[in-house]
């Protein structure tokens, strides 16, 4: 896929949550650029901070440190995290979000029409009613909802249909970037395929940029141009999709890939076991966060934090031994 201009530059995002004197570092020093029209996948186990990262980028959370440089449609570069509320309002409609659970992310007491219309009401209060409804109808039809049913309430729709409502709500403002937080995880496989195809088509049609957060590696591999792997709040590897899946450079990525069940019984990938569980993010291990579970761990790993560096063009990794290790990925035939 051809890369457009840089649309977002996520720089050194930190997010710390304080509660009862305990500081949880949910996201630590994550940076990556995003180009217009591409899809960035973010994967990792639960609790690794991928959702927090997504929410920081749309500024649903106020990150503790860092900046998100956003190139507006006029070519101006602004720091999305520093602008005041008034300016924020102007740009917020350009970055939208689709949520994980299609059951709890829609207000059960609003009709579908009202749900999709709400962003318009909030952002264009003076827009004539008729135009608003026309816009809603258009977008609803585009995402494959039957416009005759828009007066109904969410409970009358199935999971896949609800996710379409969520997509329509995100799209109605003509955003440029959509953060999809586990947007298809709650759906059945055949419905999942429908929604993924829809997201694909919409991207082509509107030139959308996606930040696709998911724990499902198959889906991420399918949809993304570049993928970031997170572990315990840190980005441990970031690379073009094929590079990452074929030649992972971080031992965590390697284990993660080997754990994916492949839908083919003749492929029995040798699993590289991860022992133990994700450590407590309030009290992460010293040095490389992954060293407690890493099979390539050395003295140095437990003392020194590995630098996040570019190994090959576009392939970033944070591992002391990235140069010497030959890790196993998938072999593309």
């Amino acid at each position, binding site marked *: 896929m051809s890369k457009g201009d840089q649309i977002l530059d996520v720089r050194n995002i930190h997010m710390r949550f304080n509660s009862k004197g305990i500081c949880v570092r949910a996201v630590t020093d994550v940076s990556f650029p995003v180009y217009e029209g591409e899809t960035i996948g973010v994967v990792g*186990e*639960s609790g690794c901070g991928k959702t927090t990262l997504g929410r920081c980028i749309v500024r649903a959370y106020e990150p503790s440190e860092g900046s998100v440089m956003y190139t507006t449609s006029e070519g101006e570069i602004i720091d999305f995290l520093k602008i005041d509320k008034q300016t924020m309002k102007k740009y917020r409609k350009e970055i939208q979000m689709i949520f994980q659970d299609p059951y709890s992310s829609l207000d059960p007491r609003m009709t579908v029409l009202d749900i999709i219309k709400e962003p318009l009401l909030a952002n264009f209060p003076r827009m004539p009613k008729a135009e608003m409804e026309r816009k809603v109808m258009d977008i609803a039809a585009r995402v494959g909802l039957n416009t005759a049913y828009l007066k109904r309430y969410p409970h009358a729709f*199935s*999971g*896949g*249909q609800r996710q379409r409502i969520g997509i329509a709500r995100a799209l109605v403002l003509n955003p440029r970037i959509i953060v999809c937080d586990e947007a298809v995880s709650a759906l*059945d*496989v*055949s*419905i*999942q*395929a*429908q929604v*993924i*195809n829809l997201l*694909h088509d919409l991207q082509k049609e509107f030139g959308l940029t996606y930040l696709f957060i998911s*724990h499902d*590696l*198959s*889906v991420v*591999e*399918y949809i993304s141009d570049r993928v970031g792997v997170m572990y315990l709040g840190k980005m441990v590897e970031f690379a073009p999709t094929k590079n990452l*899946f074929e030649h992972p450079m971080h031992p965590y990525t390697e*284990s*993660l890939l*080997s*754990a*994916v*069940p*492949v*839908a*083919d*019984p*003749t*492929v*029995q990938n040798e*699993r590289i*076991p*991860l022992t133990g*569980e994700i450590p407590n993010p309030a009290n992460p291990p010293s040095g490389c966060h992954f060293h407690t579970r890493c099979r390539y761990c050395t003295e140095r790993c437990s003392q020194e934090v590995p630098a996040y560096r570019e190994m090959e063009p576009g392939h970033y990794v944070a591992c002391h031994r990235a140069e010497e290790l030959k890790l196993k*990925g*998938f*072999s*593309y*035939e």
Partner: protein
Amino acid sequence: MNNETASKETILEIRDLKVNIKTDEGTLTAVRGVNLTIKKGETLGLVGESGCGKSLTSKAILGINDKKCKAEGEIIFDAENLGRVNLLSLNPRGKEIRSVRGKQISMIFQEPMVAFSPMYTIGNQINEATLLHITRDKKKAREISLDVMKKVGIANAEKRYDQYPHEFSGGMLQRALIAMALVCSPRLLIADEPTTALDVTIQAQILELMKSLQKDFGMSILFITHDLGTVARMCDRVAVMYLGRIVESAPAVEIYKNPQHPYTRGLIGSVHKIGTKAQERLFSSEGTVPLALNLPAGCGFYDRCSRRIDGVCNVYDPQLVDIGQEHQIACFACTGCPYGKGGKEEKANE
């Protein structure tokens, strides 16, 4: 499979199982005649989307469905103490089924967080089955439970025994749930989406654990899931379910290599196989699974099928037909219709 040796190996046989649910709008037939056999030591995968009746089928085996659900048909289980017995003919609150339920057939539920009571310690809850089925001696029961907890890989079992569910992580809780199911060495283990709520790395650990325990205990597993990846990893045979019916059943390798039923093909085509070149579009069947209320005649997949034959598929009900070694499908477009108009030409066109 009708010869004697095969039937001896069979541990569970489901014949024409129907489950009806009474609703305000009428009777909903959620399971519409399921036929299944599970042999000793094998893992059978039951695959289907939500609402296809796979969980109801598994719960019917144990007789733990909701009161509103009525099961008909036969579920024949090769019980240790009762011989071959139809579980549905037993009193669901009687002594016989209790000697089977939890002891000879046990179940792992989908969400470990919900399956445990937050009010009791893990050890206490695992002990429940031990005390009921194995021994009345509490000290002995504790030993047995601890032993199983160690077997399923719960580190520091003595300490963990006295902890409450909220002190466990998801993966550990799932292990505890497996320990609870295995404590009586069941002959058949029903695993209802045991890894859906878990991360891939933990999922891989749990699946491997189940496989190795299966070898140790020599049990059969009915593995219910919608995830085709875990099925490929775990199962010997696969039965695909759609709208309360088995539409295709075959050995695992066969079903991925050579799927026949249009629904199975769609299901496999809708999943991107990781590590391969991405196809341009994922396959997706039109529409969604219809509600099993007032279903029209004919094949349940008719509305969404790409190979439907008008005048055949919406008139007659397809039955499972043998088309190869242990490979059965219920589809007129693939096997031709015994009632007249054939579907063979359609196949040649494809």
